[in-house]
């Protein structure tokens, strides 16, 4: 486990949401969920089963799985001939927390971040590489 380790492409990150945040029958993730400059997630490498997270017991029982990829890490700007846009780069890193720096939630070895300014193009890239792995309204 290394603090600040860059999470490679192909790895899975989990986010947790209260089912009540989703309208009935909506299976598509609302892109605005991903707009935080420091998007907090759990890395599957350290939490293989997302349903063991404390978030689940706190009612955030809907899980969104994000697949790390270059499209998210290095978004391209179509207005700039599809070239890389350095200001849009996302740092995707392992950021384990301890009981000291998160007294409410306790230690979380899996904690990770997608850091960087979230322009609409980046939010959409995250959304394209995300899927719900449980649904708030299964019936």
């Amino acid at each position, binding site marked *: 486990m290394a603090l600040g380790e860059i999470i490679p492409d192909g790895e899975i990150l989990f986010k947790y949401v209260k089912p009540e*945040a*989703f*309208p009935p029958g*909506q299976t598509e993730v609302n*892109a*605005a*969920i991903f*707009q935080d400059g420091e998007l907090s997630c759990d890395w599957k490498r350290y939490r293989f089963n997302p349903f063991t997270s404390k*978030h689940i017991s706190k009612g955030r029982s809907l899980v969104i799985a994000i697949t790390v990829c270059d499209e998210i890490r290095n978004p391209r700007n179509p207005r700039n001939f599809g070239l890389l846009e350095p200001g849009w780069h996302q740092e995707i890193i392992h950021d384990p927390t301890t009981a000291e720096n998160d007294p409410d939630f306790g230690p979380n070895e899996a904690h990770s971040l997608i850091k960087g300014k979230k322009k*609409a193009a980046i939010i959409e890239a995250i959304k394209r590489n995300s899927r719900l792995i449980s649904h708030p309204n299964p019936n």
Partner: protein
Amino acid sequence: MQESIVSSFSVFNQELRGHVRNIETGNNASNILTDYASSPASDFLNGKEQNVRELELHAFDNFIKSRIQYLTTLTYLGADWISEKSEPPQIQIIDAAKSLLRSIYNWFSSEEGRVLFTPDIIMGPIPSGGISFEIKTNQATIYLSLLNDGSYTLEVSQDGFYYEWDNTDNNYLDGIIKLLSFYGIRRDHSGWGNFI
């Protein structure tokens, strides 16, 4: 009137499902086109475009009503609804979002809006506080965020390009309607494949 439209749609659905089953089993596959040409589903699509419009508007009305009900439930969402620091939408923003949905429905049922197909709408709360909408027309996606501080952002995405709407006039509804008018799919320029 609405009951008959729904009933027609049920007939259409049943017939379509019947044909799919036939294709899967191989039974009567050669008769599918003949069957279809003389079916109520064919009448429904060929001669009663007005009914299709009414049906779609009826479905859109139900959709808008369900989303307005959902918005009411957001009053009880509470803080930290996502796995990071997060705020619930304020009551005023929830009311503004309801009003926006009603206005969108009213516009699509007006003479001006009825010539367009109704859009898909994805929505939900914003972690920093507010409600966001993604309004999809097949040609473009319109992103509207109503923020707890009373401000808003309006953007359009088309073929990977993003455009920001000038939000200084504080009239996002006007912006939404103009964008829907511009990016909406017109019925008279579309085959029935677009409807399906």
